Structure formats: C-alpha cells, structure tokens
C-alpha cells in the first residue's frame, strides 16, 4: 500500500479468489456458518465444529506430510507460525471468549453474512476495529508478551523428537474412535428424543 501498489498482481488475487470461493462453499455446506452450530459446540451439544476441523486436520496432514516425504513440498513450503507460547495461549483464550459472544470465528462470520445472519455484519465490522486496536497495542505486546516462551517455528514432533507420522497416526485413530463413539452416543434415547421434540414445538421456528 505504502511505497507500492494497493493491489497484488492479478494472478495472485485470482488464486486467492479460487481458494476463497471453495473455502466459503465448504464452510456453508458443513453448517459452521450458523450461530447455533458454533454455540452448540461450546455447550457440548452439537459436535459439528470439531468434526469439520479434525477431519480437515487429519486429511490435510496426511497429504501435506506425504508431499513433504516425497519431496513434492520442500521445507520452505511449510507455513508454521512461530510458537510464542504466552501470546498463543492468551490470544487463544481471548479469541474463545470473543467467539462465545459473537457466535462465529473470522471465516465463518464472513460466511454467515452470506447465510442469512444479519447480526454477523456487525461482528465483521467489530473485527476490523479489533485488528486496529491490536495494532496500537502491538509495540507493548511485542516487548512484554511475545517474548515469553518464544520457541520459533517449531512443530510438536520436532519438539518431542519423533516422526510426524506418529502424531498423525495418533490423531487419526483418536478422531476415528472418538467420532465413532460420539455418533453412537448422539443417537438419542426414545424418551429424550420425545421431550426434545416437544421442546422444539414450543420454541418459535427459526425461520422468523
């Protein structure tokens, strides 16, 4: 923007647009662009968010580490974010509180505006303000918070000193077993399902 063009070159923008179109499409179809689905996850009632995220992580990790192993992707092609452990943990906690109030994360909030959620528009405006506030706080944060537990761009397997495939295998098994049990557990017992059905009929339809 300063000392350069406002826009990146068109081929970069076209690539970003293709990725964004597919990403938005998948987010809407998965159901995570709805407030009820996100809050339902935090209330441990609807596990859609975890199902989507862990599926993406396991499938993504299998492909990315297979491409790393075969040399299709070099070490420079990885995008590991630096471990500033205090910043990561504190930021994660603040993020979780914001998500509980807003009802979306940044990507699903943008998608929600396209999925009938009018209140998400205000949250997206709030996100711009949040970014600007962080920029003002950055010099202090950079000196006092991001220096604590700064380990650099490390991965869990590199810190432990084992092959990434052990972690990927553990994640895949944990997800497969966990979700199999969850699907069985989520089948409501007849009596509970009847009370829930009755509850639903008392509530006004969501379409109003």
């Amino acid at each position, binding site marked *: *923007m300063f*000392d*350069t063009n*406002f826009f990146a070159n068109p081929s*970069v923008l076209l690539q*970003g*647009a293709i*990725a*964004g*179109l597919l990403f*938005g499409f*998948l*987010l*809407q179809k998965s*159901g*995570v662009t709805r407030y009820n689905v996100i809050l339902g996850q*935090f209330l441990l009632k609807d596990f859609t968010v975890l*199902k*989507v995220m862990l*599926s993406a*992580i*396991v*499938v*993504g*990790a*299998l*492909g*990315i580490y297979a491409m790393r192993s075969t040399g299709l992707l070099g070490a420079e*092609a990885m*995008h*590991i974010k630096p*471990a500033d*452990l205090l910043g*990561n943990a*504190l930021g*994660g*906690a*603040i*993020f*979780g*509180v*914001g*998500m509980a*109030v*807003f*009802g979306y994360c940044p*990507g699903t909030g*943008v998608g929600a*505006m*396209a999925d*009938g959620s*009018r209140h998400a*528009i205000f949250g997206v405006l*709030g996100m711009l303000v*949040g970014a*600007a506030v*962080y920029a003002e706080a950055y*010099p202090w944060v950079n000196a006092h918070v991001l220096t604590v537990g700064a380990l650099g761009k*490390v991965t*869990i397997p590199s810190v432990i000193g084992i092959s990434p495939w052990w972690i990927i295998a553990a994640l895949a098994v944990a997800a497969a077993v966990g979700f199999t049990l969850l699907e069985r557990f989520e089948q409501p017992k007849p009596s509970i399902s009847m009370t829930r059905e009755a509850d639903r009929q008392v509530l006004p339809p969501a379409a109003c």
Partner: protein
Amino acid sequence: MKNPLTMSRWSPYAAGAGIGVLSWATFLFMHKALGVSTAFARMAGAVEGVVAPGHVQANSYFAKYLVGTPAFEWETALVVALFFGALLAAWLAKRDNPGAVPVEHVPALWKWRFGGSQWLRYAGSFVGGAVLLFGARLAGGCTSGHGVSGGLQLALSSWVFLITMFAAGALATFAIFGWEGRNHV
C-alpha cells in the same frame, strides 16, 4: 440421488475432508496456507491509512503488512471470495428448499438470555467480533490459520491456540448461558 450442490447440509466429515484437500492445493500450487484474520489486519490498516497515513506507517504492526507490500493480497482476495462462495452454497441450497437459509437478526439462544432487542444483539456481535480479532492477532492466527492450517502442520503454536480457544470458548459460553442454554440451541 440428490444433487449434492443443492443439499442444505453436507456431512461434516466430508466437508472437513474437502477443506483438508483444499489445503493441499493451496500449499502445492499457491504456496499459501488458508487463513482469514491477516486480511483483517491489512484492511483495518488500509482504512485507517486513508484518514491517518502517517500514523499507520509509523505503527510497527501495520508497517509489516502495508509498507512495501500491497494491502489487497492473496488473503484479502480469499476473504472477499469466501463471502461469495458461501453465498453460492446458500443460494443453491434455497433452490431445493426455500426455507434452507432463514434470515436471522437475533438467534434463539441469545433471545432467550438477553431478550429480542436487535440492537443489543448487534452491539454484542460488534464487541464479540472486536475481542475475537484482537485475540487472533495476539495468538498469530484464527481458526483457519492456526486451527486448520497450523493444526494440520502439527505446529506447536497452533495446538496451544486450539486447546486454549476451545477451553475458553466453552467456559465463557457456559458462564453466559448456563447449562440451561443447551435447551435453546
């Protein structure tokens, strides 16, 4: 068989796997990882830069994203297109089932807890969004950049973020809505 494009919901496992495969493509062909919150830092700086260019250039955070680098980058195009991708998916869902995309001003759970005021919900949304993005920038990414892209690379930073995010989100939600809230989602 029903046309998957006009179905209102896909299996979360299938949609999640699709996001994983999309990540392969962005790493391999675009040399990028999916992420949303960086674009908000760039856009906030660009908007502020119209009013106070000197202030933005002097800020060490904005300078990283805006001096000598375009404001409208791959990530910005991704966020804008994300909206249209979701819009396309919602529009296709409405062709099969006109009620698939209900307009929502005040969600049922919020209404049960805080009443039906639209402006109170809009204010909550705004404040929540601001807190959310502050947290994302402090952590170095959001549910996409840390959660999905960092998670699949097994980055330590991203798994620390994921765990604290879920724990704090659940605690805050139970603090705000209580166990009773589970009957309203």
